[in-house]
């Protein structure tokens, strides 16, 4: 048998085993009882701890209690932080492996982030098909035309991931089998379009030659570029305006002074429970004599992460930088060349914002990850007024959800509680991992050009958030939680229209992620129609 023969053992040996196990199973609960839940250890993972479930006596409350309790206890049991730290220390420092699949421990202890198909893109495993490249080209040209109709220049760059810039630190087992999506699109656009596409990768790779232990182009343990990387990219972006009336010279290295050890502005150390053990020292840059442009937050900002730079006395042109999380590093450099620079943090193209600002130049500088996860739409499909008109005219209703019956939480994405109200659905969000599954609908795209499916949502939000619609590419395939359409939600009631235009999308298992902010969301209307964009 898998049985163990039982040799003679002393009472002491028996006692030690019993005491050891009893202490080991009791210590977590004892620590919880004495010290309370270590909320900070969960917050270090940049998420909210699961709340203690409410205990009601209705059937649904009783049914939900065990799962809620398990979630709470998983976050709350004592010594959790100590155990995770011990594990991660062994994994990272002894085995050189990441404790989570979404990070990679590279050479020299560098950490690479793999989410959102970063590795697939880097290795060229999921290249664009020709028709997808053509779609991107058309969309970028439509965006360019829209920006030029405002009298502005349009410059596009897709920022390379750390994997591309520091490819020599990626373990050899990650063999590259083709170009990244970013490189593919760049080559396609250069061959087939005159949209101003800028490649900052050569400049960033050249900058790597200047690396020192406290100075790099990207944070060794984070995901973003540093001041040095941002400065190198900034010079390329400013240089790209050379053949325009806005031509100006970027500031050289000599214009900046080094600030030693500005701390770890970007590191996974905390989230791995290894702060203090993973050393983060990174110097920063500052313009000698101080920055000329001043950052201000203004009321007009539609989104709390938008940034606004001003040089009031200047006659310089104005600009918008459409950016993602890489933006904050490059904005100060860019702002030195404009009287007004709006840093607009969006993953999609916001025509209404640009029309309101009316800049002289628009830099569209988004990281390369959306190339693998977002289906781009042209500017007209992002104008809500226009979409509302199209929706009201359409008669081909593909889905009209009965909110009292048809929606349920996606299994595994249940960190919320649903309550049926009269004609509405309340979603009490406990944490970010929640998604409501829409009933199946006919997602066959209309045949005529300019026709597409449009989702109308009437939703009350507890605060500023992003509403995502995730979908799948095959009826039996998994819901791809990365591929999504996104629209912003503001606190209070929102009526938003989301174009669903990816021709590969299927209408089963589509997920609606109402927001990560904890609180009460109320869905009042969910409808999909096939519409014509006029």
């Amino acid at each position, binding site marked *: *048998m*898998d*049985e*163990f*023969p*039982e*040799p*003679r*053992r*002393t009472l*002491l*040996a*028996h006692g030690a*085993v019993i005491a*050891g*196990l009893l202490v080991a*199973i*009791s210590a*977590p*609960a004892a620590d919880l009882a004495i010290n309370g839940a270590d909320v900070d250890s969960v917050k*270090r993972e*940049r*998420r909210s701890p699961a709340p203690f479930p409410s205990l009601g006596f209705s059937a649904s409350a009783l*049914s939900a209690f065990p799962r809620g309790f*398990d979630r709470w*206890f*998983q*976050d709350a*049991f004592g010594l*959790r932080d100590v*155990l*995770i730290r*011990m*594990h*991660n220390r*062994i*994994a990272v420092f002894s*085995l050189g492996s990441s404790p*989570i699949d979404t*990070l990679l421990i590279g050479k020299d202890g560098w950490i690479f*982030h793999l*989410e*959102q198909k970063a590795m697939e893109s880097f*290795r060229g*495993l999921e290249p664009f098909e020709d028709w997808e490249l053509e779609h991107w080209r058309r969309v970028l040209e439509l965006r360019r035309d829209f920006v030029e109709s405002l009298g502005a220049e349009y410059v596009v760059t897709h920022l390379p991931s750390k994997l591309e810039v520091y490819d020599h630190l990626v373990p*050899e*087992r*990650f*063999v590259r*089998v083709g170009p990244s999506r970013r490189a593919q699109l760049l080559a396609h656009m250069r061959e087939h379009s005159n949209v101003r596409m800028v490649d900052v990768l050569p400049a960033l790779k050249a900058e790597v030659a200047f690396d020192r232990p406290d100075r790099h182009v990207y944070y060794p343990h984070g*995901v973003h570029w540093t001041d040095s990387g941002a400065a190198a990219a900034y010079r390329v972006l400013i240089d790209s305006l050379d053949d325009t009336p806005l031509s100006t010279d970027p500031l050289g290295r000599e214009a900046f002074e080094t600030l030693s050890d500005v701390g770890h502005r970007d590191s*996974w150390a905390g*989230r*791995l*429970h290894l702060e203090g053990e993973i050393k983060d020292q990174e110097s920063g840059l500052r313009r000698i004599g101080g920055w000329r442009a001043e950052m201000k937050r203004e009321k007009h900002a539609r989104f709390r992460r938008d940034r606004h730079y001003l040089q009031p006395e200047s006659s310089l042109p104005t600009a918008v930088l459409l950016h*993602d999380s890489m933006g904050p590093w490059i904005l100060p450099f860019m702002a030195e060349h404009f009287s007004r620079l709006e840093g607009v943090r969006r*993953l999609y193209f916001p025509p209404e914002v640009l029309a309101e600002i009316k800049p002289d130049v628009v830099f569209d500088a988004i*990281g390369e*990850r959306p190339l693998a996860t977002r289906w781009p739409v042209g500017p007209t499909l992002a104008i809500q007024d226009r979409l509302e008109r199209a929706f009201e005219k359409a008669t081909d209703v593909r889905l009209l959800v009965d909110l009292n019956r048809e929606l349920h939480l996606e299994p595994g994405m249940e960190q919320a509680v649903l309550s049926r109200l009269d004609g509405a659905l309340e979603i009490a969000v406990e944490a970010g991992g929640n998604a409501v599954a829409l009933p199946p609908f006919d997602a066959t795209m209309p045949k005529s050009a300019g026709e597409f499916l449009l989702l109308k949502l009437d939703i009350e939000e507890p605060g500023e958030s992003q509403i995502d619609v995730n979908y799948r590419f095959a009826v039996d395939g998994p819901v791809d939680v990365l591929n999504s359409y996104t629209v912003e939600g503001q606190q209070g009631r929102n009526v938003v229209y989301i174009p669903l235009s990816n021709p590969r999308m299927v209408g089963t298992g589509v997920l609606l992620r109402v927001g*990560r902010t904890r609180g009460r969301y109320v869905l009042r209307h969910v409808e999909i129609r096939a519409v014509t964009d006029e």
Partner: protein
Amino acid sequence: MVFSQPTFLFLFLPIVLGLYALAPRSAKNALLLGASLLFYSWGEEWLVLVMLASIGVNYRFGRWLERLGAAEGVAPSSRDRTSHADKAEQANLSRQRWVVALAVAFNLALLVALKYAVWLLHVFAEPIRSLGFDFQPPDSMPPPIGISFFTFQAISYVVDVYRGQAQAQRRVLDFALYIALFPQLIAGPIVRYRDIARQIQARTTRFSDFAEGCRRFIFGLAKKVVIADTMSAAASKIFEIPGSEITMPLAWVGLIFYGLHLYFDFSGYSDMAIGLGRMFGFRLLENFNYPYISSSVTEFWVRWHISLSSWFRDYLYIPLGGNKKGAFRTYLNLMLVFVLCGLWHGAAGVFLVFGLYHGGFLILERVGLGRALGRIPRPFRHVYAMVAVMLSFTVFRATSLADAAERTMPLFLPGTGDSLRHPLALYVETKSLGIAAIGILLSTPVYPLYLRWRGRAHVAAGGVGDLLELTFLAAAVAATWMLLSVNTFTPFLYFRF
């Protein structure tokens, strides 16, 4: 609830152990039953009512059989022979047969209704529709966890009472404890009532028993959390690769990882059940005997999930005539047993094929393959057995027969697949390789051999042997606790930029 989740390990178990230690002897069974029902309903909610219904009905069947004169210490066959003259006795025996048949039918109906009905409706949907009916089978739903275990336990109880091999339990609470005892409720082993009837009535837990229980529980938990879960994750990554892209070496590595996952998951649960049982004073029978050292498929089934194969042997194979009715009936009986054994693992066509596959090998080995194998060196026989068993795991894991075929082809086609997209090194990391090596080592009886040597060599108690063992157990606990904690570690990384 499962043994490897924090709620069980850090809350439920210490509380139940503490209360059990404090409870008076007369209240211990009631306490264990209450804990078991809470354990089950925590994950299965209202489905605990199904188990309670099964308990109530089977308890009544046992009492009914007892009233009809069963369970008097005489097997029905011998009662048959001695009571030819007594017609009343004959009628009584006939009634007993009806009652036991009714009891078996009830249990099988419960099992079929909750585990197989939807699958069967899907299988027969097309023929039904071809008859002109507008028939849409309902969506499948997972069966109540552990239903296959507690149903088989219930059947063994009523059959043993009928056969006179056990006395009917008169206290419903004690019978309920037999069915619902949480250590073996959800993953076995399948416990025969006659094996623990006395322990339910009266048992003692000696200090050394409790310590042995702790050792076994720690070992089982580490097998599950450290080895099985690591192998599961590593195997899953490989099984996600499309069949057309996977290379031959990678396909074999994936299969070996999966084989290790299956064995350590299942035997780990059995170890935990046996260990927990021992802590509460129960001696549960062993369920695995190092199946991966087998040198034939027949031997594999003697060593793998012993409580299931012996259940089928005692309650199906032998009643069907076993090997006493000629070669053809023997093969037919074997095949029937293995088809049902395959389906016991799940309601899907792949499990049917899994059973047919193993039944086929057992017949082949009886027909002559076994003799032929006996003439080759043991290492080659071992390779044969392992290849045969591992190949069946591709079917076991597959979602359909087409999926199984897609997974099996690369195992025999060198030079296919895409080694650039899926280099071996990408899937075989230091951690998974190290754990696999430990797993392969522990798949052999190296630890019992050490313990036996220690016993024979009279290594002094309290000496280096104890110290080594304590160090090993402490390391197992540390590794398990760390991995359990990491399973709750879900850092929000970068979802929305």
